[in-house]
């Protein structure tokens, strides 16, 4: 815990300065660290999931179970469908390799705000409905693909 008297003296010297002059070296370090972590997660995150291979497919998961898979060849075309999960109603749209939840009647609307997802490993999630929309490597894409083959059979 900071010595309060000392902090008061330091803070008084702040008054005549513009806000960016209050910054200390540790602050700059934190700014850089946060930017680096964000960029690393954004750029390297999908690579942790394995090679993307050929096309990308999309999976809808409810309560941890894949309920629908849109195969790569279908994902590049335009289409939409509706589904219900845990009492909420969702409309999913896809076109040219990207997919989104366009309408949902869940309370927080985070999944709708997420918008289009198209990169490998990207997800659009609804916490109240326990629903996850994820972009995965297609089964033909190689060993990194996480789509279960038997699920594909059900859809086809």
């Amino acid at each position, binding site marked *: 815990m900071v010595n309060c008297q000392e902090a008061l003296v330091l803070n008084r010297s702040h008054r005549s300065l513009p806000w960016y002059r209050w910054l200390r070296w540790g602050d700059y370090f934190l*700014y850089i660290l946060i930017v680096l972590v964000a960029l690393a997660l954004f750029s390297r995150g999908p690579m942790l999931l394995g090679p993307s291979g050929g096309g990308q497919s999309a999976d809808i998961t409810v309560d941890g179970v894949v309920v629908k898979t849109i195969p790569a060849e279908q994902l590049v075309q335009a289409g939409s469908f509706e589904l219900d999960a845990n009492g909420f109603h969702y409309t999913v749209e896809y076109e040219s390799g990207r997919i989104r939840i366009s309408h949902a009647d869940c309370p927080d609307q985070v999944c709708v705000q997420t918008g289009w997802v198209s990169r490998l490993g990207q997800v659009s999630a609804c916490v109240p409905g*326990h629903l996850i929309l994820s972009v995965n490597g297609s089964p033909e894409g190689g060993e990194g693909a996480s789509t279960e083959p038997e699920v594909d059979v059900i859809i086809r």
Partner: protein
Amino acid sequence: MSATDKTRRLTTNAILLSLALILAIVERWIPLELIVPVPGIKLGLANIVSLFALVRLRWTDALAILVMRCLIIGTFTGLTAFLFSITGGLLALGIMGLLVRWEGKVFSLIGISLAGAAAHNLGQISVAVLLLGEWRLLVTYLPPLLLTSLFTGTLTGVAAIPLITRFPLRGTYAAKR
């Protein structure tokens, strides 16, 4: 701690709690996600109160104010929103409580508030990861939230400094330590 100090502590914390509640409510009026379309974005105004309590009072006071604020707001927003705010809030408070030791030497309050904002986002997304069992949520949701936390964290830090500077130390029980 004398009886007067105990009363002072109680009233100070009660006032800060009501201030935190007001800020949390005002924050919900601002449709920030319409201006910056990042899912889960929050201004984090109530963090000003946590920061104040950490610097001017004790960490136990900051903790009590935080938990009470999350519980009271949580009764209106529901369980999921409560889990998001309490986990994010506790992680933010932990990080800020750690960094506040070096306030004025290594970090300014802006940096401490920034770290708190980033920690809040990490806690928030971690809850979603645990609830849904999908760690890839981190990849999609954390980077944009971290980048916006640079602005929201700086904003709350800049807002907190005049408040903390103007608040007199003499007369508060914390000054007698």
